[in-house]
């Protein structure tokens, strides 16, 4: 009797086990399907514009909703230019922050500072954008822009008229740098924590200073990971739409002057959310999104595959 009962229970248990496993498998497969669906849907939505403009879309400068000629070059330039400058600003600062958090600060201060960095990551981009237009922009227009123009005006970056409103590429670059910093800093911090203590202790025992240990041991041991951390920051800066739309001024044009207005792929999409009338206009916006998607997916794949070689738990602000 008990034996039969036990067997029956084990059968129902096995069935339940099997179906629970299948249920969780379905959920896990859903993630992969979701990624595929995002890529497929966005590429499919860009189809109309792709058929009309082909790959030439990326190198064409037109963006004219009246005659329905669309091209992405201005926005590709704006994206690459602002992202590159923002990362040039953010990467060294972020890595220095990560070194401070892991190698210099006493434990309590490191905990507090790491929390602050994560809070910086938690600020919604629309709030940072609001701050960008109403606080940072006017400050730049009143103080920093005239100063840069006076002192460094011989460089092409700081030529041209200072915008009265404070919107423009420079404001966008600073906002993007603020947004990329927490990501690069938190991934670098996790990387530095993976360096074996024996290696560092050995180097200290040889009489090296802290800086020499970092240059000679810590950085070489994590170099590829740091590259990946920076790529993750690049991905964040490339794709930021809202804050950039708010501060960049929203104009086509290719110029080096940081005082001028511009537009990025993401900010152009965001700015035209109400304005797209014709199907080809909508499809061209989706084409911009597709360009952005392809770039960020590749950047992330590369960065993730590199980071994966370092065994660490990801807890940071991502």
């Amino acid at each position, binding site marked *: 009797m008990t034996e039969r009962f036990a067997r029956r229970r084990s059968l129902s248990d096995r069935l339940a086990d099997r179906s*629970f496993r299948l249920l969780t498998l379905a959920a896990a497969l859903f993630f992969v399907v979701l990624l595929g669906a995002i890529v497929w849907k966005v590429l499919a939505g860009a189809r109309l514009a792709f058929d009309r403009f082909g790959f030439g879309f990326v190198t064409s400068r037109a963006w004219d909703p009246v005659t329905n000629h669309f091209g992405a070059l201005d926005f590709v330039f704006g994206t690459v230019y602002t992202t590159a400058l923002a990362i040039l600003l953010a990467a060294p600062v972020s890595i220095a922050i990560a070194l401070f958090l892991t190698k210099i600060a006493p434990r309590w201060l490191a905990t507090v500072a790491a929390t602050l960095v994560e809070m910086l990551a938690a600020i919604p981009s629309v709030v940072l954008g609001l701050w960008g237009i109403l606080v940072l922009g006017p400050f730049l227009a009143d103080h920093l822009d005239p100063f840069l123009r006076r002192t460094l005006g011989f460089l092409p970056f700081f030529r041209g008229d200072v915008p009265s409103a404070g919107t423009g590429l420079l404001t966008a670059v600073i906002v993007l740098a603020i947004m990329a910093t927490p990501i690069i800093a938190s991934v670098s911090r996790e990387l530095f924590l993976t360096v074996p203590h024996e290696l560092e202790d050995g180097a200290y025992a040889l009489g090296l200073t802290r800086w020499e240990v970092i240059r000679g041991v810590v950085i070489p041991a994590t170099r590829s990971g740091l590259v990946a951390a920076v790529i993750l920051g690049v991905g964040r800066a490339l794709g930021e739409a809202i804050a950039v739309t708010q501060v960049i001024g929203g104009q086509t044009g290719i110029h080096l002057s940081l005082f001028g207005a511009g537009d990025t792929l993401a900010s152009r999409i965001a700015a035209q959310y109400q304005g797209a009338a014709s199907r080809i206009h909508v499809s061209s916006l989706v084409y911009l999104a597709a360009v952005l998607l392809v770039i960020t997916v590749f950047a992330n794949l590369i960065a993730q595959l590199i980071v994966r070689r370092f065994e660490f738990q990801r807890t940071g602000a991502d």
Partner: protein
Amino acid sequence: MATGAAVLADPTANLGRRKVRNHIFQAVATVAAGAAAVVLAVVVISVLHRGISALSIDFFTKTPAPFGATGGGIADAFVGSAVLVGLATAMAVPVSVLGAIYVSEFARKSVAETVRLALDVINGIPSIVIGIFVFELLVLGHYQSGWAGAIALAVVMVPLISRSTQEVLRLVPVALRESGLALGVSRWRVTLGVVLPASFGGIMTGTTLAVARAAGETAPLLFTCSLATGIVRANPHFPLQSVPIAIFSLSESPDPADHARAWGAAFVLIAFVLVVSILSRLALARSRRKLGLRR
């Protein structure tokens, strides 16, 4: 390494210069960390400072005043945001947790790695592109709706919740699972009755962090749920107003009174986001300690 080798030849060589270099490095790194703290403080303080004067009872209970008029509030945005984020959470949590269970309890290593990679890549997709995806999927040819907005937010939340759930499931000691199995308890009961309760705190933390993130997301809603009509509404068949979209459109307005409203909304949003993230991080630290893991 070259510096290291040169130093090793004679440890006392240029000791003064080496020390100076070391001090410079430490100063630079400290200043960098200080700068991040200052930026955070400047942003938070300017939002608090400008936002607090815009707050009033009306701000939370009334609908927007017509352009140029004074008074009014953004009650529609608060209600809409609550509905959108609530729906998104209800959609994202079950699938995220189930998928995380598969990855950490059942999957082979290669499969687990693939699923994790997919999640990380989704996490890296710009949220405006997620918005475009849901726009293509649901809105194009139909209408914007609360459902579309909630689904877009759910896509943003799924990788966050699932990744953090995987991390806490990994922290549950193997011995706990083994003792359950040794008692003859079946796998699914061990998972639902032992592993999941043990990691409940961590899953809640991951979820609240994702809620904080979704509450502040603007870009996924632009194309899916941004054309609301300014009345308080909770029915997701219609487009719902939301706090981030309200801030976005108010910030682009030429009217200074709208800027004040934007600051008020930003105050509420940033207070919500920061308080939620700080509390959940504290809770996470506690649940980690409870599982006997310190990092």
